[in-house]
């Protein structure tokens, strides 16, 4: 019988001690792995949406809010700006590309955004079916919108005022779906895009639409744009914000919480290794006679060492496997919540590089935690142990 197999039997023979060690390790590994997966998903998502947007022009207010609302479409906009004023910036020689966005209303909580075809083009969103919007009140919808609302090409719908509820429905002008986008993985999947003119059209009766837009996504031609534009805007109701810097600030604020969580997870992992260590030492004291017996039956000391080491490794491997499984269940559960509440997709289930490091490190520490009791198995005096007769 191989030492590894006997080790597994021995470990399973002590379900409580083994269970505690495995459980602790599973939680430690699970939390860290969950953090790695979420982090990967988050940064990929953030980066995908920032994609070459250097600056965002919008109404004065919180720059972070400006970014969240217009790049990620998760917050309410800071306000509107006059298209005429924005044009001056959009035509600035330091600017290579400018994509105007005008927030309209929502349909079943999916945002209707007035823009130009350059916006989907920026995210490489191809038309899956139908055609690109041209006239006012034509819309092209993202994959998520299509899946959630069941809208098809040729369908019409009325928008609801604002961004967050569906109570105040505009009954005057109906939107017509003329196309759908391929899945991009970017926020476009969750948007309803239409020419800016449709947004103005809807609100004609509410305010004297002096041609206002919400924001402009800017791509710089010259790095000096980042220094020059804020000065140009100092005495206007407009501002520019840098997505990369704002998101960095945001993740750093997240960071403190994440660091605390990581410290707790490492603490749990540390406890689990102590638990493996104690479980093996206690079982060793309990099994001195058994181990001495194995020696008399022909197992040399190195086999006893291997046996105890394997027992520790079994617990470690089981803990790591359970932890990685746990984190994936966690991603699926959290992903469901995030998608239901924020239309934010988390699908990172493929192992990320950090997880290999995590598993390797846990295995190594597990081997060390098992190695110390295993060494003491080498030193058992079989004659004294068996002579006591017990």
């Amino acid at each position: 019988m191989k030492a590894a197999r006997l080790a597994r039997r021995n470990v399973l023979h002590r379900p409580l001690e083994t269970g505690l060690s495995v459980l602790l390790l599973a939680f430690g590994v699970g939390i860290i792995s969950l953090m790695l997966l979420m982090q990967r998903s988050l940064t990929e998502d953030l980066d995908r949406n920032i994609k070459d947007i250097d600056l965002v022009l919008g109404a004065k207010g919180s720059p972070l809010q400006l970014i969240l609302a217009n790049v990620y479409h998760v917050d309410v906009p800071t306000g509107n700006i006059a298209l005429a004023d924005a044009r001056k910036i959009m035509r600035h020689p330091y600017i290579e590309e400018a994509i105007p966005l005008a927030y309209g209303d929502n349909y079943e909580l999916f945002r209707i955004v007035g823009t130009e075809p350059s916006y989907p083009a920026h995210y490489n969103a191809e038309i899956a079916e139908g055609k690109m919007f041209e006239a006012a009140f034509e819309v092209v919808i993202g994959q998520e919108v299509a899946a959630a609302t069941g809208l098809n090409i040729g369908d019409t719908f009325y928008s609801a005022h604002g961004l967050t509820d569906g109570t105040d429905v505009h009954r005057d002008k109906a939107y017509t779906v003329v196309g759908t986008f391929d899945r991009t993985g970017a926020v476009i999947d969750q948007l309803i895009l239409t020419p800016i003119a449709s947004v103005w059209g809807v609100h004609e009766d509410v305010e004297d639409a002096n041609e206002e837009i919400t924001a402009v996504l800017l791509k710089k031609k010259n790095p000096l744009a980042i220094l020059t534009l804020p000065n140009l805007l100092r005495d206007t109701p407009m501002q520019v914000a840098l997505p990369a810097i704002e998101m960095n600030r945001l993740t750093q604020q997240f960071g403190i919480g994440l660091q605390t969580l990581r410290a707790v997870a490492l603490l749990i992992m540390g406890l689990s290794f102590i638990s493996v260590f104690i479980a093996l030492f206690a079982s060793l004291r309990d099994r001195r006679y058994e181990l001495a017996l194995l020696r008399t039956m022909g197992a040399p000391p190195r086999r006893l060492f291997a046996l105890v080491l394997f027992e520790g490794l079994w617990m470690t491997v089981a803990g790591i496997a359970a932890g990685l499984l746990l984190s994936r269940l966690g991603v699926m559960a959290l992903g469901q919540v995030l998608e239901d509440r924020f239309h934010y997709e988390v699908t990172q289930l493929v192992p990320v590089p950090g997880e290999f490091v995590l598993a390797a490190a846990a295995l190594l520490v597990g081997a060390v935690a098992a190695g110390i009791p295993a060494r003491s198995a080498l030193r058992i005096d079989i004659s004294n142990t068996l002579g006591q007769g017990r």
Partner: protein
Amino acid sequence: MLKTQGLRYQYAGADTALAFPDLHMDKGDELLLLGASGTGKTTLLHLVAGMRTPTAGSVTLAGAPFSALNTAERDQTRGKHMGIVFQTAHFVRSLTVGENLALARSLAGCAPDAAVIEGLLQELGLGHKLNARVDALSVGEQQRVSIARAVVHGPGLILADEPTSALDDANTDAVLTLLRNQAKRTGAALLVVTHDQRLKDRMSQHVELNPTS
């Protein structure tokens, strides 16, 4: 099969060394080592089994020097050529009766053979205990299983340390008969160490150990 020469053993802190009579056993021989407590019976058994290294003298097993081997080599040689029945039966508790026997065979380098194990258990009246947990056996059953474990790999030498001290007359007879039958069946030499005078009349060859010899 077994030859000892001038075996002496001095415990750390003891004034004098224990000296033991030379033993010579061929295959199929039976020998009873009798002695009161303190005469070093168990020490002699452990020297023969290579579980202790003698202070002086040597043990030769199957014609080859045994006591001069290193620890790991002695462990492996012992596993292959000897079967030991201890005073108190102990097993690998995570394994079943059958698996404990299979483990003894595998450590001795024998191929796993379910038929041998089942046949042996049948013979000892334990056929129905093949898949039983060792913790679930009665004391008498445990002693019989430990005899089975001592012979399952066909060793040339069977050592028994006080196999009957905890048993009544009827069981003493039964255990001794089992040991002798198994030794005879496999042609092994049988060395029994005991203070149990009841065995004296039942085994022809015996050596008495004297205190402070």
